[in-house]
């Protein structure tokens, strides 16, 4: 019975992915636990959770994007590559998780937020390290021994009611109940940074990414519970300082041979960024969305796409000064020259509500000219008649 309960608990990939490695050795490439162990139960349930992920409607199936993320993972995983499967899930939150059986979920909210390939490698390397160091197994055993199997099962049952981002996400949300220990986090930081460095990436990007996430969280502390990853991986100044110091030594030793890879990441994610930004704004955590976009703009100051979505945040939030901010952002997007046609719709809507009929008409007409097949064509035509144009 106890073994069955243990197996049930480990239906949760990330719950299982947080363990204490006091008494377990790191995995070796090709590792599988012996069938008569409790760890085999963990793997069995992880396999079942992985099967659920494979059939999830949230699964992003685009072959190019999957090949890209898998390629980065394999570059840092090296001889462990064959043991890992990557699943990209269309969930607009920052999260990644690796189950004890080698399956890893990466959420699109994370892919939106990383600035370059080195930062993506940092997160993947950190999660792989929890897997490689078998934190999962030890954490599960400790939770079972200290909390009792029934209590863990009760936690899992309660988790079924968590509705913020779906059942797969619910599993991950349970991280908050059993966070990694500081020692485990330090170990994953160090091992992850080593993997990133050995693969030729700039390890200083790891601390930069964590810092950006803390900035985003602090932008809306009342909604910090949306930061599943930071809840299960609480960052501290001490950890950031340590990462930064180690990175400085590595960068010095590398003598300029390290890669950041911003252009490569942007090329791989370009077809999806607009949709990911739209999903980000739809969360209605506008202060966080502003932090996300402004973080990205630090590296991409001339991105019309980012300027457009900055305008969308202001237009949708509609706080007292937001219409003016939206117009500024939309106009900057137009000036950047690489904004989508919807920037003119955003301008027209904002101008129409501000009573600026002439500019609204001009911008709506511009939108219709650039997007003649837009599915809101009839609505925009209606707006034009409201603005005094002939039907």
């Amino acid at each position, binding site marked *: 019975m106890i073994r069955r309960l243990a197996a049930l608990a480990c239906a949760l990939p990330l719950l299982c992915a947080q363990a204490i490695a006091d008494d377990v050795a790191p995995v070796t490439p090709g590792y599988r636990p012996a069938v008569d162990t409790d760890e085999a139960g963990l793997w069995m349930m992880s396999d079942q959770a992985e099967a659920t992920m494979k*059939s*999830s*409607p*949230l699964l992003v199936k685009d072959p190019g994007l999957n090949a890209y993320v898998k390629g980065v993972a394999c570059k840092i995983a090296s001889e462990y590559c064959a043991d890992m499967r990557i699943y990209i899930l*269309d*969930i607009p939150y920052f999260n990644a998780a690796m189950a004890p059986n080698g399956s890893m979920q990466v959420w699109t909210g994370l892919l939106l937020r990383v600035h370059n390939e080195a930062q993506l490698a940092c997160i993947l390397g950190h999660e792989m390290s929890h897997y490689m160091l078998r934190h999962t197994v030890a954490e599960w055993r400790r939770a079972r021994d200290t909390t009792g199997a029934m209590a863990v099962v009760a936690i899992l049952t*309660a988790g079924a*009611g*968590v*509705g*913020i*981002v*779906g*059942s797969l996400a*619910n599993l991950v*949300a349970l991280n908050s109940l059993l966070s990694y220990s500081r020692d485990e986090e330090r170990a994953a930081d160090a091992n992850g940074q080593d993997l990133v460095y050995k693969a030729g990436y700039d390890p200083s990007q790891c601390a930069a990414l964590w810092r950006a996430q803390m900035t985003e969280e602090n932008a809306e502390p009342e909604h910090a*519970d949306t930061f599943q990853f930071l809840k299960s991986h609480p960052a501290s100044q001490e950890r950031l300082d340590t990462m930064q110091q180690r990175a400085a030594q590595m960068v010095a030793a590398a003598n300029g041979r390290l890669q950041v890879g911003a252009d490569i990441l942007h090329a791989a994610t370009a077809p999806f960024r607009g949709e990911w930004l739209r*999903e980000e704004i*739809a*969360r*209605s955590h506008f202060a966080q969305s502003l932090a996300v976009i402004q973080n990205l703009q630090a590296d991409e100051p001339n991105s019309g796409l980012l300027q457009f979505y900055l305008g969308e945040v202001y237009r*949708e939030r*509609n706080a007292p000064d937001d219409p003016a901010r939206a117009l500024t952002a939309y106009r900057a997007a137009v000036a950047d020259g690489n904004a989508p046609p919807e920037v003119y*719709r955003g301008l027209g*809507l904002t101008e*129409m*509500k501000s009573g600026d009929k002439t500019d609204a008409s001009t911008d709506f007409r511009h939108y219709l000219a650039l997007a003649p097949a837009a*599915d*809101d064509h*009839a*609505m925009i035509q*209606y*707006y034009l008649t409201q603005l005094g144009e002939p039907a």
Partner: protein
Amino acid sequence: MRYARFATLAALLAAAGCANYSSVGANAPVQVGDNVSVLPQIQWGQAPFPGFAGTLWTEDGAALDSLMFFTGIKPGEPLINANGVSKDELRTYQAGMLPNDVMDLLATNFSKLSFQQIRTSNLRPAPFGSATGFRFDLTFSTKDGLNMRGTALAAQRGGKLDMILFIAPDEYYFGHYADTVEKIFASVQVPPPSGSG
């Protein structure tokens, strides 16, 4: 646990499945709130919704087909007001919203209710009885991975918002009731705007 406040509309729909229904006849106009009436076309069950601001009709159970009426929504009120969902989590209707804003309002309200991959489309003008209204469509998935479809008819009258929303699983149920829903949308009757006729 702290996530309890994210109790979902889906959970409410499931709860409605256990509730006592009253019958709504097919052939007589029914007032659904704020002087909006519709002709039901078929016999529906009306499900009580604890804490839910609107009226809900269903044929096969609320998780399988839900025709929801949100009427007389005043500025400062969310479109969806479900038990367990903190009001500060929900964007509210505001005076002067354009149809685009109302469509976004529904999408963001839904995003707070555990629905995912919410996509809105086909925003277009449409009559809401004798008033000028608008239509739009949406797709989303539930937290259990069920692909859903929806279609909405809305209007802003006298500074308040009315919306009729039908949602159902994309597989079978949405298509099965699509014609009926279109007829109900076409049957909407509201009083003429003050000052006219």
